[in-house]
């Protein structure tokens, strides 16, 4: 029996969370999580792209020839990513500069193609939209958790506001990519030990 919207949503957000349960989208999880603001914008971009490409792939699912479906998926995903990039450059130039090449790299985020291939191409438009939204949100929340730790310890700030007492020594390692491995690993460990995935 097909899942209800609520079930699809819970799966993407938690029980099948792309980062915690499927270990997808790790490259960008390492790259952008040293500042909360960058992480948030990256997450919003990913939510938009995953939801919209899911909708499009789903809408075209009955006429897309199976043999070229992956080309079609990449084309659709790339189109939405460029839309995000152009809009950021036009309306949020500072954030666009801070994210640099990472926006373009949303195209290669495995979560998006994973959802297009694993869900959207076999399901109607509405469930595909919910699935894309939930997976994007699931990704964003995990990345924000990682960024929270990294920004707090690496800069002594949260969203740019200083929160640590004066004299706090920033942990340089937290700013560098290896720290994302440590923080993410601890999160994965915690999530999968305390709330193991039901078989």
């Amino acid at each position: 029996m097909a899942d209800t919207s609520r079930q699809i949503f819970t799966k993407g957000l938690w029980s099948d969370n792309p980062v915690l349960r499927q270990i997808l989208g790790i490259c960008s999880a390492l790259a952008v999580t040293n500042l909360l603001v960058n992480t948030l914008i990256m997450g919003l971009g990913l939510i938009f792209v995953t939801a919209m490409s899911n909708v499009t792939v789903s809408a075209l699912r009955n006429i897309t020839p199976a043999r070229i479906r992956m080309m079609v998926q990449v084309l659709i995903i790339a189109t939405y990513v460029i839309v995000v990039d152009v809009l950021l450059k036009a309306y949020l130039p500072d954030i666009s500069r801070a994210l640099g090449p990472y926006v373009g790299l949303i195209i290669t985020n495995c979560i998006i193609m994973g959802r297009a291939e694993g869900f959207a191409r076999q399901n109607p438009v509405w469930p595909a939209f919910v699935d894309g939204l939930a997976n994007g949100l699931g990704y964003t929340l995990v990345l924000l958790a990682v960024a929270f730790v990294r920004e707090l310890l690496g800069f002594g700030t949260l969203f740019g506001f200083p929160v640590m007492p004066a004299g706090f020594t920033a942990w340089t390692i937290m700013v560098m990519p290896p720290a994302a491995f440590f923080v993410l690993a601890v999160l994965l460990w915690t999530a999968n030990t305390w709330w193991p995935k039901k078989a």
Partner: protein
Amino acid sequence: MKKRWFSVLYMFVLTLVCTGLLTGIQEVNGQRIEVNRQARENRVILSVLLIPVPADADNARAAEIYAQRVREVRLGGKTVYQGLGKDGTSILGWAFPLSGPGFWGAIQAMMGVSPDLETVLGVEFYDQNETPGLGGRITEAWFTDQFAGKRLIPDAKGRFFYLVSSPEKDLENQVDAITGASQTSIRVQELMNDSIREYLDLLRNAAPPGASPSLGA
């Protein structure tokens, strides 16, 4: 056979639709993006020439100040920027771009120098993709402020500046490097020295030492 042709046609049409959509969006926003880019560059040029822009000035106001106080001069295929005094004729200094590869990507900076081309007025790094918190700190004031007031005299190795971990105050060419960002520091040093040499040559040739550089008039 028929299936294969359908696939080709399908992909062709879909690509056409997607590129059409993107062209449209780019068309609608292109001007805005260009204005943002230009506004940012204008502010950087004003800042390194030490021409004050009120903190609350919007892009239009900054552009107005820029139009009054900066003259763009083409020299040997490159653009340099001449900073003008409030009267619009006296010369405050020159600004030119510093650019080259960084650790992760290209670095763009702007440097302002005095009219006699001997003293640095200011430096600002405005486009870079270095590691935030490490190499990315080249944009911070503590780093860029070190250059202001330094004399542009090359040392025995022809370097205007070199980055070291603990600079000695009286050594004109030494600048404090960024801890934990050796690669960025090395590349910044290289791109600064190369660009400074190139643009000083350009400016000196256009206006021989001693003569007041009044080109572009």
